[in-house]
């Protein structure tokens, strides 16, 4: 099995994002970035499949500006065999939609005959939760989203436990398939120093949108990005009886 793992470079999860005064986007300059945490989980699961001899090769893919190479190096240090960087400039990247990323991934998956596309369930910047499902739709492959457990069933199927609203669901999908990782699937490993050194020698294949015949025409336009309305703190109450009284006054109890 050959696995294509999509990795996105996002503002680090520990950073409190700020909206730009001109309301066009959020502040990204001089802000720490890292690999989307859900993509890290997808990558870790792919590496586990390889360690269990179910996967032969893992290729990490990222679409974005030159800086995306950093996270591709991280992916290589964590166990990807090689990487593909679809490079676009900053201005172009601003307008890229999950739709376009999914088209690129679908094209690669088809052209290079991958058996499995593995992504995070959502990126923590746009919180869109679309890319995996879009890839599956473009390829007409089965999908197992929000995976919290992945087991192989022979060489042709995967059994996947999914996190759904009311609990858990188990499905079987036939390969080739698209999977998206949920939080509880695994705990990603850290890259070790020797692996970071080794990763420097692994290949990163650069591609352009043209190489993949990718049309980046926008279907959406961001009109404004604003701060959410802030919720005002209320008051401290002294004890339980006061709390109950106040809640009753407000009609909340």
């Amino acid at each position, binding site marked *: 099995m050959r696995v294509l793992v999509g990795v996105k470079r996002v503002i680090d999860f520990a950073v409190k994002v700020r909206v730009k005064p001109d309301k066009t986007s959020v502040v990204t300059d001089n802000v720490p970035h890292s690999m989307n945490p859900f993509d890290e989980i997808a990558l870790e699961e792919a590496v586990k499949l390889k360690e269990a001899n179910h996967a032969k090769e893992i290729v990490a893919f990222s679409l974005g500006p030159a800086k995306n190479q950093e996270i591709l190096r991280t992916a290589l240090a964590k166990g990807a065999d090689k990487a593909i960087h679809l490079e676009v400039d900053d201005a172009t990247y601003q307008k890229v939609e999950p739709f376009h990323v999914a088209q690129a991934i679908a094209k690669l998956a088809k052209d290079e005959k991958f058996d499995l596309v593995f992504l995070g369930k959502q990126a923590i*910047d746009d919180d869109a939760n679309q890319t995996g499902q879009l890839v599956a739709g473009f390829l007409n492959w089965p999908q197992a989203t929000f995976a919290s457990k992945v087991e192989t069933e022979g060489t042709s199927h995967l059994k996947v436990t999914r996190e759904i609203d009311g609990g858990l669901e188990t499905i079987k999908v036939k390969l080739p398939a698209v999977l998206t990782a949920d939080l509880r699937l695994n705990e990603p490993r850290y890259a070790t120093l020797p692996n970071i050194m080794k990763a420097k020698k692994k290949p990163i294949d650069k591609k352009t949108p043209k190489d993949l015949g990718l049309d980046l025409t926008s279907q959406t336009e961001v009109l404004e990005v604003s701060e959410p309305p802030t919720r005002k703190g209320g008051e401290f109450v002294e004890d339980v009886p006061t709390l109950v009284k106040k809640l009753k006054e407000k009609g909340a109890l």
Partner: protein
Amino acid sequence: KSTLVIAEHNNEKLGPITLSAVTAAKKLGNDDISILVAGSNVSKVAEEAAKVANIKRVIIADSDVLKTQLPERVCDLVVASQNQFKFTHILAGATSFGRSLVPRVAAKLSVSPITEVIAVQSEDTFVRPTYAGNAISKIKSKAPVKLLTVRGTAFEQAAATGGSGKGEQAPKADINTDVSEFVGQELSKSDRPDLQSAKIIVSGGRALKSADNFKILYDLADKLGAAVGASRAAVDAGYCPNDMQIGQTGKIVAPELYIAIGISGAIQHVAGMKDSKVIVAINKDKDCPIFQIADFGLVGDLFKVVPELTEAIKK
């Protein structure tokens, strides 16, 4: 202009999120709203759907292969319906069902979907949160068909009665049943209301210290007729299952009353509950961020305060 709402149901009952999606559909300004009910033995659900206020048509797909509503199968039906009716908008709730399905349909229609919509400004302009709710984006869609998932917490439920939609068979779709198969489901069983529809939610964090200690929350919840939620920290610590998680990576809720107990108020948790009408926070650390968004804060030891509160409500 016409809109399709994809019903969420369990073959017996229409899910409340469908009613929220109908409200969002109404805000698009189209009077021609259809509901697609795809499942197995769904006549009851279809009847329910026909009665929803403002519904013109109920498209019914009743088949064994749709029993578990796998996205691959429902997707093909939505696409077939779209080819016949040429809707301008297709909506579903932002739930695990809608989230799985809508982008897949979008790919088949070559459309960029807009997910997690919290406000409809016009037929083509929508508002959605990003960065765990720390930024709000207003987005205009130029797509020929708008595909949306909408958050139940942002749209009131449409009236369940008053409509008289006319039933119609869904067009034939070539459904491929080979590629995916339903194996089983393990749904959390509880007599309490579920998080998404509960009027009151009692929610616990890491300060509960163990799964056993969650019992004091269940006792309080049962007194209040409330649902019980948890922070990601509590889920990660193994105190409760993930389907109780509220936050950016869990469920988004907006009850009338939210009681956060032993929860510090990490951004990722607040993203999932800050639209609650009244927020109460109980925590022993008076500097923790949850107090900044709480209407009422009580500083104290939760193991003392919570049983006291349960007792006070009994009276």
